[in-house]
């Protein structure tokens, strides 16, 4: 990126070719920045004084923050954001902010400034979670909450959750982050064990969501592939997959949107097990499409 920048002020080095990018005044640079993303702005800030000044201007960063960023700020202790310029407010909010006594996390996507949320398994109601024959908590670095719920075996598989939050107007996708099989590190390599993994190919799991204003969505998916696909390699095992529940639309930030979501497989004629449940992600839909499997 540094190499690319060196050519940007070609014209302004007095070669008489005419003005270059380095010659435009700060107010015009701020205008250009309205069309660029925060990482691009920060990269360009090192170009010259006008760019540096424009990259710190409140007008530019206020446009990058969501309309209801004040609501997000209220989640943070006031002494952390008092007197901060808008740019630093953006930086503050683009790191995960705990919500609901630390049960959930909210952050702004660094590129688009849109609100994303993550709800850990701890904050969800999981049937049988207190029974160690069924569920266990595994500490791990592969989850942003540093632990996942591991299902050994159960007949009634149900995970429910809810959140009430002033989401900015947008279309959001809810997804569950799941992993078939138990993973661990052996001699520095990641190893998966599928000794408990069973029952997911018999009947599909049902994912549902509903909102306080009457929207509903659902989807069904078999979490595992049937046995004969194992010859070609089972792509559903051994990796984290985001299972999309559905989408919901937020039209107004006020009143706060309440969403309930769940994941169920309650056919008690067969047992299932060998699954890690990490978290639920609520992310603007077109953002999710851009970042397919990189949610960590």
């Amino acid at each position, binding site marked *: 990126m540094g190499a690319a920048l060196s050519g940007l002020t070609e*014209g302004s080095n007095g070669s008489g070719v005419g*003005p270059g990018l380095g010659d435009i*005044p700060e107010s015009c640079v701020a205008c250009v920045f309205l069309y*660029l993303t925060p990482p691009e702005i920060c*990269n*360009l800030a090192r170009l010259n004084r006008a760019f540096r000044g424009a990259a710190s201007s409140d007008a530019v960063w206020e446009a990058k923050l969501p309309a209801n960023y004040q609501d997000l700020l209220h989640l943070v202790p006031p002494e952390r954001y008092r007197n901060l310029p808008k740019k630093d407010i953006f930086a503050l909010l683009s790191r995960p902010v705990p919500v609901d006594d630390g049960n959930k996390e909210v952050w702004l996507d660094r590129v688009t400034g849109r609100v994303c949320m993550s709800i850990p398994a701890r904050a969800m109601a999981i049937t049988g979670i207190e029974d160690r024959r069924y569920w266990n908590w595994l500490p791990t670095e592969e989850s942003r909450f540093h632990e996942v719920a591991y299902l050994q075996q159960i007949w009634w598989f149900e995970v429910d959750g809810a959140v009430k939050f002033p989401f900015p107007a947008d279309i959001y996708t809810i997804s569950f982050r799941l992993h078939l099989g138990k993973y661990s590190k052996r001699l520095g390599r990641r190893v998966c064990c599928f000794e408990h993994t069973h029952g997911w190919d018999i009947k599909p799991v049902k994912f549902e969501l509903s909102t306080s204003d009457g929207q509903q969505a659902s989807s069904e998916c078999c979490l595992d592939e049937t046995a004969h696909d194992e010859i070609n390699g089972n792509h559903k095992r051994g990796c984290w997959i985001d299972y999309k529940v559905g989408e919901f639309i937020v039209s107004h930030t006020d009143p706060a949107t309440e969403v309930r979501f769940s994941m169920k497989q309650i056919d008690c004629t067969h047992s299932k097990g060998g699954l890690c449940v990490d978290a639920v992600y609520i992310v603007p839909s077109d953002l999710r499409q851009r970042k397919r499997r990189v949610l960590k």
Partner: protein
Amino acid sequence: MASSRKITLRSSDGESFEVEEAVAVESQTIKHMIEDDCADNAIPLPNVTSKILAKVIEYCKKHVDASKAEDRVNDEDLKAWDAAFIKVDQVDQATLFDLILAANYLNIKSLLDLTCQTVADMIKGNLFPVRNEWLNFTFSIANRELVLVCLTEWVAHRRLFCS
């Protein structure tokens, strides 16, 4: 309808352009000059060359004509016209920046938005010529303090945004 009064604009290289008042007042700067009664003779624009002034006038004329028509279809046609107007191989980069400076000086918001968005797209598309000696660039700056400040800021920005 008010009579279309003609305003004369004089570029930095002495060329005069006669335009209708409605076109001239697309520029807030010129509009204020007219309101302050400074426009009896030609309005001098020392910061704008004739080449750029001609383009600016072309832009303003098109937008004034478009706003007169009542057709909604004209919105898309106008956008297409704007895109053709600013297309970089027609408008070389120096002209593009001259247009930004002119739009800023003359305070024509729509032209400023159009040109700034074009520059933003070019930055995203890496359409600026690339030179490989980044070190030459940083150390050729006479003001060493600026280098230090920029480098410090860059490190701070990287920490914040590029982790």
